[in-house]
Structures are given as structure tokens and as C-alpha cells.
């Protein structure tokens, strides 16, 4: 397996902009310039209209929790130090039809609920026994406004 696994390969072209965005504190998604459809995962031409031109656009970072799993077992040894943690799929406000894999932070697992509102936050991703770190888009619950 590649050196640095399971950190992402920041140089891999199809997802380079996703990780470059995270490093700049932005959640960016690939979108077809012709039909405006989100091209996720970005594996070539637009799946909607076949256009070649895909641009990366900044998202608001607001999302809903589509589903999640609490990892209690180290399916990879590199996951071990972080257990338990919440791995999730979220549906972005602008792109509800595609799902972004992420981790949910700043929330106890027992307080999570399907479709709950989330917002992006950027945190360093590190793994036991792996050199280096990568800033990654995680999600957290949107803080509830206190009602007077």
C-alpha cells in the first residue's frame, strides 16, 4: 500500500482540489459547468450530460447527517488510537443528492440523529504509526441558539 496510507494522497489529480480546499479552510465540490450537476466522485466526465468541464466550487459547509457508524473495532491498525470515533455520510445543503464521507466531531455518539443539521469544520487528520498530518473537512452539529 502507498506510503502514508490511510492519509489521502494530496497529489492524486481527481481529488487534489478537495484536499487543497480543506488546507485553505474551504469545502469544495466538483460541479459540471454545463448542467450544474455535482460530479461526485469526480471520476471523469459529468455523469449527467457528459460534459468534460468540471469546476470546483466552494460550499457553505452546511449539511444534514445522512447516516453514521461508531467504529469500535480497528478495521485498520492505523484507526486504533482514535477509537471509538464516528464515521458518517453527510448530504450537503447545496448537493443533497450526493454524500460526503467524513467524521463527526464535537458530539457524543448517543446524541446523533438522522438528518440533524451539521456544519463543516477543519481538523488535522493523523494516524497512529503514520508520519505527517492532513487538514480534513469534518462535520459537527450546528450549535443550537439559546432561546431567552
Amino acid at each position, binding site marked *: 500500500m502507498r506510503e502514508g*496510507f490511510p492519509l489521502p494522497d494530496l497529489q492524486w489529480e481527481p481529488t487534489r482540489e478537495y484536499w487543497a480546499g480543506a488546507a485553505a479552510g474551504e469545502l469544495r465540490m466538483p460541479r459540471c459547468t454545463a448542467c450544474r450537476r455535482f460530479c461526485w466522485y469526480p471520476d471523469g466526465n459529468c455523469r449527467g450530460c457528459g460534459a468534460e468541464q468540471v469546476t470546483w466550487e466552494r460550499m457553505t459547509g452546511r449539511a444534514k447527517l445522512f*447516516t453514521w457508524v461508531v467504529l469500535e473495532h480497528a478495521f485498520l491498525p492505523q484507526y486504533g488510537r482514535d477509537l471509538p470515533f464516528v464515521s458518517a455520510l453527510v448530504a450537503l445543503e447545496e448537493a443533497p443528492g450526493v454524500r460526503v464521507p*467524513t467524521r463527526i466531531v464535537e458530539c457524543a455518539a448517543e446524541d446523533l440523529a438522522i438528518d440533524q443539521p451539521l456544519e463543516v469544520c477543519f481538523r488535522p487528520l493523523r494516524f497512529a504509526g503514520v508520519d505527517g498530518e492532513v487538514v480534513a473537512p469534518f462535520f459537527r452539529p450546528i450549535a443550537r441558539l439559546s432561546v431567552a
Partner: protein
Amino acid sequence: MSLADWGHAEPYEDVSGEIGIVGIGEAAYSRASGRTSRQIAADAVASAIEDAGLKPSDVDGITLSMVDTDFDAAAFHEHFGTSHDIWVSRCGGGMTWAATAAYDAALAIRRGDAKTVVNVFSVDWASKRGELVGGPGHFHAEELFKQNLEVPFGWFPQPVYFASIARRHMAEFGTTTEQLGSIAVACRRHANRNPLAVMRDKPLSIESYLESPLIADPFRKEDCCLISDGGAAYVMTSLARARDLRREVVEVAGVGLGTSKTGRYWAQQPDFTATPQIFSAPVAFAMAGLEPCDVDVLTCYDPFTIVSLMQIEDMGFCPKGEGGRFVEGKALHFDGGVLPYNTHGGLLSHAYVLGIAHVVEVVKQLRGESASQVPDASVGIYGGYTGPQASTLLLRRGGA
């Protein structure tokens, strides 16, 4: 969500009633054993040919997997000391192909490419486990979109994919942990009755299921399949020829194959809580002229409890979303259940041989030879699954 949005049925020709399964063979099912997949395949094929009452030189077709099972024509000849022409298809083996091999064999027999075809699948992943990153997740870890967008976030490997699907199914339809547990318990009870099953000596009650630790919440270990060494094979020939052989005829009555556009990216499948079985099963039922209510016994590819639950819904045994209530209690048990299911123990408790033993079990049921025999079973069905695809094989006793 309209069906056309995320998948389709493959346009299959009608092969109903053209061929039958005339022999079945199994190699030992085990934990790590040091056997190679080729040795396992040879054992299974030899046993299937013997069961059919044939000689190795009678077999002039092999369908096997693109990966793993390394038992091609050269290996066949080396093992059996034969030298005749053999038609070979790499679109056979386990998973979805444990069903669709029967379709490809029917066409090959129709074309005259072969008269008698053996489908074989074997696996030595228990012995190889140490070489694999994330066990069977290895193949997903190597896929670069997963490696760069899923694995860094812990969305890996298969137990996490399917626990995510289970969570969503629970939220959408009210499916419960106990309902998933009832699938695991049914499989284990059948395995406890099957001397060939890896988990033959390990009972599982719903209470012990609920007490067992979570590994990928909402999944417990018992929601997940075994990792095994083992394999099996089955022999097919024309229905006319099948009637002259020694075993009771088991007719291939219907076959279907459905495909999801989103392929191996479970995260992106628009209808997240469904399987391509919704495209596949109607094709097989129509080809056979049968309906779900005609089925006496079901085996389905069960890497995780939720996959069986979804396939039961998607094959039409109950409406979508009612699978949880459908499988409750003893509904899936061989003795009195409404839908006897994985009566050999399944991937969860028999062995992780990727579906080939599921087809063998349906044949045993239709011949009256199962360790957990369903009385007078005459129609059986296998649901195959890979994620990107699902397949359906309807078998009928006698070949009327």
C-alpha cells in the same frame, strides 16, 4: 426514486427449462487451513462430477471466477489426467456469478460449445488473511476514490459500509437491532444442525446476540460474515440429458441480473437502502413463470444481516421497508418459518465461500438432502450480490 435513476436489469434471453443441475460437490469448509484455492477447487469439482455419476472426461465446460479460484482447463487436465477440449468462461464462480453461471452455461450448451459444464468457486482468504489490508476490504482499500475520500474518514471496510446502510434502514423504516439479530440467529441455528458448517458447535440466541459487543455500531460481530477457506461446485447439462443421469433433476427455471449505476461506491447509490435485486428478481421470476409466493426455500448472499433483509424486500417477499417485521422471530427457520432461509447457515455461520454453497444448498433442499430439510421443497431461489450487481437463480425440482 424511480427505478431508472440508479440501475437496470440485464436483457437476458429466456433459458427456462433448458438445463438442469445434475451434480454438486463440496470441499471442506474451515478456518485457516493452509490449502490453496486450486486444491480446494479440485476437491469440489471431483466431488461434483462423482455426485453426477459422470467421468471427468464428460465435463467439457468450466465456469469460474475472474479472481481467486485458479482452476482453469490446464488445472483440470493436470488434476484429472485428461486432455479433451474444454470451453472456459471466467464469468462464473461465486457471488452474483454463482447464479449467472447457469445462464452462461445454458447459452454455451445451446450454442454447442459444451455439453456438460461445471461451475466452481473456492477461496483461501482465511489462510491469506495476514496478507490483506482490512481483510476482504483489501480490494476496496486499493480503489483510489475510496482510498482518498472514504478510507481517511474511517468509512471502510465492508462492515462500515453496511452498518451505515443498516442505520439508514432503521431510521427510514423502523427496523430494529432485534430484527437483524433474528437473521443471525436463524443462520446459526441452521449451522448448528449442519455438520459441514464452520459454526456447527457454536450456538447463538437472540439474548447472546444482543449482549455481544458492538464493532461498528449498529453492527455486532454476529451481523458480519465469517472469513473461511472452502469451496463448492455444481455440474449442469441439458434437461434432456439430465433425465438420463442418476440424480433427481433440478431445473434451472429462471435467472436474472441487475446492475447499479453507482457500482462499488455504496456511499453514492441514490436508493441507499436497496439492492440491484429489485432489477434482477422480476426477470428471473418472469422467466420461470413463478412468483415469490411459490418459493419454498431461499438462500441469499449474506455478508451482513442487513444485506439479506434488503434482498428479501427487493425480491418481493414483502413490501419495501417491512423486511424487519417480516424476519422477526422464527420466520426464517427451516421448520415452520414462512420463508426458510439459508438453511445451511449462510455466510454468517456456514462459511464465507461467497455464495457457491448457497446454490448447492438449494439443490440439496430440492433433492430432499438438506441437514435442515424443508418438507417437500419444490422451488428454491438464490439471491447473489456483489454491491454493484445482484443476481437471481430460480431452481425447480423435477423439471416438469
